[in-house]
């Protein structure tokens, strides 16, 4: 019974996601597209933080790597769009394996600093590597194209992004049910117990970082083709921090939460535009309130309402 309700809920959300762009204009399409792009990053943090118990404030680094790898392979090597995006994910994933190495030794604050250093390093290298990345001038990125047909409007691109999000969300769900994913969560709950069960910590931490970096690289690649122009300012420390904020506010243990997080990060600046500099204050307060009262993120609010509805309907029957 509750499984059926869940299915109906998922179908409803899908329907809404498919129907959203209708009646909107170009700017609306663009905002919807960024929601999907952010949500993919949020998924990646679900894997790394929610399942793996690791921390990263360096995801802007993976995002940048994905964006530049895809853009450059399309511009300079003539790769088709989809191949470029995949390459963006792969390049980021390789660096993910690299960033996992400090995570095998240090945790918590130290790991946060290490990942932060990684993101700053990537940003700086991309900035200085002028002949390749355009440095200060930046880099023009062609529109996305599927099988030789250019997607002129963000309306159609939104559906590509939605499909990508759904594919990665499906993979994330499979991962959460998989032996590997469950072993990763076991390590988070008790490393000593997990190792006594024969679960190798290093292997699983590396997998978590590689997967998370791959997702974020894909997202960065898709973002580059949406923007049409890349400059290294896009991948600042502030972006890494807002990724973390979005993932926490949306919910770190839920794919629907990842979607809410993406929506929050894309929509909040739009809604709060009037507040100008006071925006940062509001973000800060939102985060504090969320951590204090909704540690499971916005999605846990939805789940609470769902349970309350269940109780009343149980009582009535």
């Amino acid at each position, binding site marked *: 019974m509750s499984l059926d309700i869940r299915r109906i809920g998922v179908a409803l959300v899908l329907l809404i996601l498919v129907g959203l762009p209708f009646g909107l204009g170009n700017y609306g399409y663009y905002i919807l597209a960024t929601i999907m792009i952010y949500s993919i990053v949020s998924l990646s943090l679900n894997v790394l933080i929610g399942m793996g118990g690791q921390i990263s404030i360096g995801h802007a680094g993976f995002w940048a790597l994905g964006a530049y790898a895809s853009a450059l392979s399309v511009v300079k090597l003539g790769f088709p769009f989809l191949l470029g995006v995949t390459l963006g994910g792969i390049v980021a994933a390789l660096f993910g394996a690299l960033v996992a190495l400090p995570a095998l030794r240090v945790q918590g604050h130290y790991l946060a600093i290490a990942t932060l250093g990684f993101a700053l390093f990537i940003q700086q290298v991309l900035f200085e590597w002028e002949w390749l990345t355009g440095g200060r001038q930046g880099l023009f990125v062609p529109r996305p194209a599927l099988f030789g047909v250019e997607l002129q409007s963000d309306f159609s691109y939104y559906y590509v992004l939605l499909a990508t999000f759904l594919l990665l969300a499906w*993979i994330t769900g*499979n*991962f959460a*049910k*998989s*032996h*590997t*994913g*469950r*072993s990763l*969560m*076991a390590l988070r*709950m*008790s490393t*000593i*117990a*997990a*190792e*006594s*069960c*024969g*679960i*190798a*910590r290093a292997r699983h931490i590396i*997998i978590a970082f590689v997967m998370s970096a791959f997702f974020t690289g894909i997202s960065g690649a898709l973002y580059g083709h949406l923007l049409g122009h890349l400059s290294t300012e896009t991948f600042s420390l502030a972006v890494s921090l807002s990724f973390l904020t979005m993932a926490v506010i949306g919910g770190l243990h839920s794919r629907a939460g990842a979607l809410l997080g993406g929506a929050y990060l894309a929509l909040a600046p739009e809604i709060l535009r009037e507040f100008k500099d006071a925006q940062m204050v509001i973000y800060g307060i939102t985060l504090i309130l969320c951590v204090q009262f909704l540690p499971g993120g916005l999605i846990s609010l939805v789940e609470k309402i769902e349970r309350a509805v269940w109780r009343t309907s149980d009582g009535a029957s």
Partner: protein
Amino acid sequence: MALLEISKVSLSFSGLRALIDLSFDVAERGIVGLIGPNGAGKSTLLNCISCLYRPENGQIRFDGRDLADCKSHQVAALGIRRTFQNLELFREASVRENVTLGLVYRYKLPLLGELFDLPWSRAMQRAAEDEANRILKSCELSEVANIRVSELPYGLQKSVELARALAGHPKLLLLDEPAAGMNPEESRRVAKTVRRLRDEDGITVLLIEHDMRVVMTVCDRVVVLDHGEKISEGSPAEVRRAPAVIKAYLGDEAAHA
């Protein structure tokens, strides 16, 4: 033949000598009790065998293999599983999940197959679930299988930890105070379980225990530690009479009385 050989093992923590030149063997299909006052080094030795600690001197051999270069997660694959004095469970997970996690490493499913939910990887997952269910049943945990471990009473939590260890089909089982915190009735059941594991499943057991009734009824050999040193070894009856043991437990006057 000895399944586990401890030879001349020493370890100290910042000057405190936790284990001193310790040697003894655990025979295949034996049940060996490790006893001694608190701080004698019993758990330290168990941690050395499970490669959580590394001895500074000496050697630990299991099944003829030196454990010196073994990592703590590789010990399980060799056939050594354990429980912990203060319980190391996956507390937020269900009983079934705890037991399943005890056996997943043996299935070695390729990650890509699992990520794309391919039919054969799904079949293997189901095989693992079936095996977990069998273990739950034989450990009489089926009824609580879906309950979160942290919500169970202490005694049942200990059973879950044992079930999780058994899920690895160990050759050697290390039990750190399996009867601690249990009433006499429950302790008797623990003793019976340990015997059954040896008699029916052929599992060798090394156990730390303070409950002397359990030690005396279940062990065929007992090793007594005090301040990191072996002060006695023998059958339960022999050890009980040894003056060094009486002294360690009850003090000098008792030994001379």
